[in-house]
């Protein structure tokens, strides 16, 4: 590619950060020393362009080590990866956790989403504004930003801190002192169970860093069985179990695996979607932190069942603890022959690569996730074609949610009740926010009760920001995949007690979508903005219900992806229930 490099030159530190991912440059053409032979021969072309997928890891390395991505650094990235400068810039500016403006070493992302803002986040903003300065400003060593839900709703208010050269950390129950100092807590998992635990069975019982403990508690039984009975039988078991995707779309997992297994493609892929960013949702994080081997085993089984020899885990950038657990688990599994060229001596080769998201809710959408891994802006693709035929790198791909994979492990291992259990994330105004494992048929009221909801809530948001507010009667509907159950979405249950300013909450949801739209399609890019504006006017007393409804219709009907299609659900349901504006 004929690339015009920016004039600025990378510093040694910046080069080191990039080289940490790519290794040192081997030729003058790649930004290394110009050797004599470089004047007479060079390689590039398809092979060079095929390394584009390393772009996001390289940008992460710069952000991690330097704290921001300069034009000089971009130039070096261009040289190393043969990616044009504008493309690098377009990708870098897509993601919330990457900065292309000079920034101090520490960036604090303070959650002000629906749960945290009702749990003290607002007070923290004032405090930070007083000590550091207004949002986005720097006191020389720190800057701070408001963040969308960080997936720590069980320990609100939460923050996520990027410290250049030191690493990333999560701060739970944040206050000014803890923001400055708090090391990562090794907190006890907040969870509860209705019935017998399956997915949470190892929480608190087995050391998540210990492969032997995992094996001693039933781990890798499923993979052994899968290798024994063969892919076809595994797919049949999963089909028969009725397992459906837990990432929100509830697509039958067996059918998805079958579709990939049935393709003729020589190369197929499996992906674990661990980008969990739906407001009010933190079950996947809990699984990765508490039972990481189950995720690794689940992806291995998915690979075996679909005929894939490679799997990716795309983990949310704000989940450093989960990422560390997964990295350790993958290493241990490799060392134990549970991953590698010959898994358990069966002749089945399977490798897992971990990729980190960079602060974009939309990258949880499966095709946006592909784009992100491939090194592009996380803009969803049109479907069809579907991932099962044209997925990651154009290969047939099975994408599965973390919980889906954990459930599949239990199902293949024939754990009793495995097919009938689900994780819910209960947070907001409840005594004991956390993950609740419960069998299908449970009601929202029961979930709230287990979490110690003292008083009946004013409102319940179900399924995440993309879900909807429940009518009072719906609290007692048995939950499942068929109506009258409301769609399960991500399994989030957020309770708002009396006294919560619901105008504020609903506007925050509208703001969330306005902020997280990828901006690609008109209905969503413009619709989320106009919905937000109309809602503000409605709260201020103007009757905008008709307009909001019209906006909702076009977003639902004509947006490319699920984000735009669901961006009006919560708002319109809140209006219908009289939760916002004068109608209350």
């Amino acid at each position, binding site marked *: 590619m004929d*690339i015009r490099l920016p004039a600025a030159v990378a510093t040694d530190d910046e080069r080191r950060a990039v080289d940490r991912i790519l290794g040192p440059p081997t030729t003058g053409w790649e930004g290394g020393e*110009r050797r004599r032979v470089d*004047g*007479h021969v*060079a390689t*590039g072309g*398809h092979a060079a362009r095929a390394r584009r997928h390393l772009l996001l890891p390289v940008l992460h390395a710069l952000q991690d080590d330097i704290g921001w991505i300069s034009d000089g650094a971009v130039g070096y990235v261009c040289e190393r990866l043969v990616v044009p400068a504008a493309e690098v810039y377009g990708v870098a500016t897509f993601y919330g956790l990457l900065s292309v403006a000079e920034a101090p070493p520490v960036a604090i992302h303070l959650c002000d989403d629906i749960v945290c803002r009702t749990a003290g986040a607002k007070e923290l903003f004032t405090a930070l504004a007083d000590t550091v300065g207004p949002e986005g400003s720097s006191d020389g060593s720190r800057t701070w930003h408001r963040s969308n839900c960080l997936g720590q709703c069980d320990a609100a208010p939460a923050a996520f801190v990027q410290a250049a050269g030191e690493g990333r950390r999560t701060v739970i129950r944040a206050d000014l002192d803890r923001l400055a100092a708090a090391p990562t807590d090794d907190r006890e998992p907040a969870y509860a169970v209705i019935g017998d635990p399956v997915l949470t069975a190892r929480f608190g019982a087995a050391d998540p860093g210990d492969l032997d403990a995992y094996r001693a508690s039933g781990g890798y039984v499923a993979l052994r069985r899968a290798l024994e009975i063969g892919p076809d039988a595994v797919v049949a078991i999963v089909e028969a179990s009725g397992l459906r995707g837990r990432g929100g779309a509830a697509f039958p997992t067996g059918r998805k695996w079958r579709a990939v297994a049935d393709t003729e493609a020589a190369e197929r892929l499996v992906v674990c979607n661990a980008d969990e960013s739906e407001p009010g949702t933190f079950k996947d994080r809990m699984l990765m932190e508490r039972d990481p081997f189950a995720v690794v085993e689940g992806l291995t089984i998915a690979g075996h069942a679909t005929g894939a020899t490679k799997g990716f885990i795309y983990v949310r950038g704000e989940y450093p603890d989960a990422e560390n657990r997964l990295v350790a688990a993958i290493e241990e599994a490799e060392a134990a022959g549970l991953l590698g060229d010959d898994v358990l001596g069966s002749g089945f080769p399977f490798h897992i690569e971990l990729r980190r998201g960079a602060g974009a809710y939309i990258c949880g959408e499966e095709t946006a996730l592909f784009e992100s891994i491939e090194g592009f802006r996380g803009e969803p693709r049109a479907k069809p074609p579907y991932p099962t035929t044209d997925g990651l790198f154009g290969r047939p791909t099975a994408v599965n949610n973390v919980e889906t994979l954990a459930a599949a492990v239990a199902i293949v291992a024939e754990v009793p009740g495995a097919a009938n259990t689900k994780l819910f994330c209960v947070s907001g105004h409840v005594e004991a926010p956390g993950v609740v494992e419960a069998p299908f048929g449970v009601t929202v009221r029961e979930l709230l009760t287990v979490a110690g909801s003292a008083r009946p809530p004013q409102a319940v948001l179900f399924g995440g920001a993309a879900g909807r507010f429940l009518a009072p009667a719906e609290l007692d509907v048995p939950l499942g995949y068929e109506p009258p159950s409301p769609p399960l979405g991500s399994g989030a249950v957020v309770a708002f007690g009396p006294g919560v300013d619901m105008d504020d909450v609903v506007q925050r949801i509208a703001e969330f979508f306005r902020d997280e739209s990828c901006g690609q399609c008109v209905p969503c890019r413009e619709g989320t903005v106009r919905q937000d504006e109309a809602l503000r006017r409605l709260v201020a007393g103007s009757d905008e219900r008709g307009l909001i409804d019209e906006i909702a219709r076009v977003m639902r009907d004509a947006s490319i992806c699920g984000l735009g299609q669901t961006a009006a659900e919560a708002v319109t349901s809140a209006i219908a229930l009289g939760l916002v504006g004068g109608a209350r």
Partner: protein
Amino acid sequence: MFGAGGGTSSYEEIEHTDLIVLWGSNARAAHPIFFHHLLKGIDNGARMIAIDPRRTESAAWADLWLGLDVGTDIALANAVGREIIAAGLTNDDFIARATTGFDAYAEAVEPYTLEHAAELTGVPAEAIRELAHAYAKAPTAQLCWTLGITEHHNASDNVFALIDLALLTGHVGRYGSGLVPIRGQNNVQGGGDMGALPNKLPGFQDVADDDARRRFEEAWGCTVPAEPGWHLSQMFEAMERGDLRALYVIGENPAQSEADGTRARRALEGLDHLVVQDIFLTATAELADVVLPAGAAWAESEGTVTSSERRVQRVRRAVPPPGNARDDTDIIVDLARRLGHDWGHPSAEEVWDELRSLSPIHAGMSYRRLEELGGLRWPCRDEDDPGALFLHGRLWEDPPRGPKAPFTPVEHDPPKDELTDDFPIRLTTGRHLDSYNTGVQSGRYRSPRRTGGTIDLSPEDAASLGLAAGDRARITSRRGSVVAPVRIDRSLRPGLAFMAFHYPEDVDTNRLTLDEWDPKSGTAEFKATAVRIEKEA
């Protein structure tokens, strides 16, 4: 090539080929829209190998770039040929049925081992081997070149060396496999079509062909000499000898475009009579006794041009020529009238129809069809003929039709302008994307990319000469000396410098270049000059 004066392939084929070999061509800058087709090929999965002394913006797209020393193309090509033979990768069936002279070729290339070629060209043996194997093994391959091959004292030999490779591997005469010279100027191909070659009549009919000549003589009512005329370099020699005393120049600027410009100007000044017909008062026109102002062919007159894929297309008058300027045809017809021949007032279409009646390969190209089909590729023999996508398909017919294609063994012959301690740096010339030839047309719009005339140096040479970007440097060859600002270019290696030739008013590059021309084609050696570079105070 084998009797047809055009590239064998159409642009569409490069989009569907398996391997693109771009040899001595910076098409990205010089032929940007051809490069679009090439990029489609790459997007469709084609591999590309580039051969060029510089790692140009075109070569930057290649899977493999071979940075040979200037003027060592034949050594490289012969080594590729030898390796293909030695590795048993020749297309024996094709060689047997469609070619002649293989044994002599094999013998001639035998000394060009990979190691020997590596010494001659500077390119590592392994890379030469990879080129050979890739070309021979590719199901289809397009071999493209431009001035990097032809602006040498042995230009024709360079081309033969490449043709030989296509014959060895059967990469010609099939969809996706061909030999593609891309024309530097908008109607060089059309000039050839019309017989503006010393040895050809319109339609590439040989002047020595009695039948062909007779048809023209009948149509034109005059005798057509059977001996070839002079090509450009021969004309200049004739001027210097005093054998050529009067010159009629149409749309050329030899005072600035000829290698060794000082010498060219002197020759033009020595003429008894010089007529220049051009849209500008060029440097050549300034020397003329009579200047005939003409309209810009592409926007101010009617007619046809032929592109590098042999496609004849219509040009049309969008605006009238300014002031006293007139259509080229009108000027010529008027001139004929003054000389006593009344050719009437033919329209462009009538002129074209006469051509169609005399040139079989253009016979099917009526104006109506050219309009409707957006142009036609020759040969197009009648009005039902869709024109030819590619040439020489006959070589694959069973049995092959027409004459067999001959191998033409050629020998490496280094550039005439030798590198010595006094002239240690190899200067090569080329084009910039936003400029064209001597800049008379392109110099008039305001390109944000125009760098003007610079001397481009490798970072290493600049450092050792104590030159920084923007410094003024004096460049001296055995023929002349110019001053130009320095540009640092990482695509150059130590010992190799580059200048464009678009800015003769500022930096007259051709004062430096060598007027050593190829006896077969008449092109001059612009690409290889030995120079000394010094900091200018």
